[in-house]
């Protein structure tokens, strides 16, 4: 893989950062998410994971670099494709992972980036459980807390929120990531692989905005069974 130059227009914001968005059937919201991101980040890459609702075209029109999976592979696979793309661009220092459904705040991403830069951190994880801004509801809380518990048991790290799509990775950390879990268990897998790089990490309090749209697509209790199974079974 030869590093390739990505032309960056003069005065662009955060030219050393790539925002990676795994995208699957989010046509109603993805355009707005990208337009907002583009105000702060010059480089946004969307990995369209075989959407059937024209999400890819919307993302491209909104100004994102679009990469298209020929078939639907799962969120973890899309994330890995985006990370692989971003880390081979010349000049990349940080990669921000961001969900397509508009549940993250750009201010949080900027804050995390600032923290990573100032403390030379390998990774900053967003956590919705460090303050009281986010109220996920009890069912979701049970799922998320179970996921965190499993993650902490597997990795020996002490996270408060494991399945948060907002993360900042240094390019060194990104090089240590090779996600095999195509489905939701990738969130734990990413923590495992970051743990192996021995790079310093921190958590950062973020707010997750539960819109009606993201609520309807949220993870169910049953899906946490899938996550557990995928992690335990080799």
């Amino acid at each position, binding site marked *: 893989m030869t590093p*390739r*130059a*990505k*032309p960056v227009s003069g005065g662009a914001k955060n030219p050393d950062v790539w925002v990676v968005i795994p995208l699957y059937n989010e046509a109603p919201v993805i355009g707005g998410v990208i337009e907002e991101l583009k105000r702060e980040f010059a480089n946004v890459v969307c*990995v369209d994971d075989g959407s059937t609702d024209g999400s890819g075209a919307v993302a491209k029109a909104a100004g994102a*670099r679009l*990469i*298209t*999976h*020929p*078939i639907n*592979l*799962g969120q973890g*696979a899309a994330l*890995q*494709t985006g990370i*692989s*793309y971003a880390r081979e661009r*010349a*000049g990349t220092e940080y990669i921000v992972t961001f969900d397509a459904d508009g549940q993250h705040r750009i201010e949080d991403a900027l804050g995390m980036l600032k923290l990573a830069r100032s403390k030379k951190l390998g990774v900053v994880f967003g956590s919705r459980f460090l303050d009281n801004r986010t109220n996920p509801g009890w069912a979701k809380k049970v799922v998320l807390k179970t996921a965190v518990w499993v993650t902490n048991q597997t990795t020996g790290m002490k996270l408060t929120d494991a399945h948060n799509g907002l993360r900042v990775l240094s390019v060194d950390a990104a090089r240590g990531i090779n996600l*095999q879990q*195509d489905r939701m268990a990738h969130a734990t897998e990413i923590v495992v692989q970051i743990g192996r790089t021995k790079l310093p990490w921190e958590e950062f309090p973020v707010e997750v905005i539960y819109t009606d749209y993201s609520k309807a697509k949220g993870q169910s209790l049953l899906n946490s069974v899938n996550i557990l199974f995928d992690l*335990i*079974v*080799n």
Partner: protein
Amino acid sequence: MTLWIQILLVLGLILTAVYLVRSTPSASHQAIRRILVILAVLVGVVAVIWPGLLSGIAHALGVGRGADLLLYGLVVVFLVESVSNYKRSVTASRTTSALARELALTEARLEEAIADVAALKSGAPKPKGK
């Protein structure tokens, strides 16, 4: 006394679970699978020619009839087969993912190379950082 068959069956099921969680496919596994297939064929032939033998083994293990023993064995073998099938499908889907990812990334590189060439032709300055 049904103790022996209980030990054997529970052991078989536990080993199946361990196989599910721990091991990854390898050449020695394939060899073991093939040996087991050959053994199963031989045992099958023997059981067909001397039907009484199966009942005898069943009695010795504490199972009522030979047919029951056969059923128990079949259940364990079915589980092992399911697990190994599942593992095969996971391996296959990982391969597919890697392949699809390379395809998507190659397409992206190609698009950028084409854009670079177009920029050169139109006389625009070459993007820095190469």
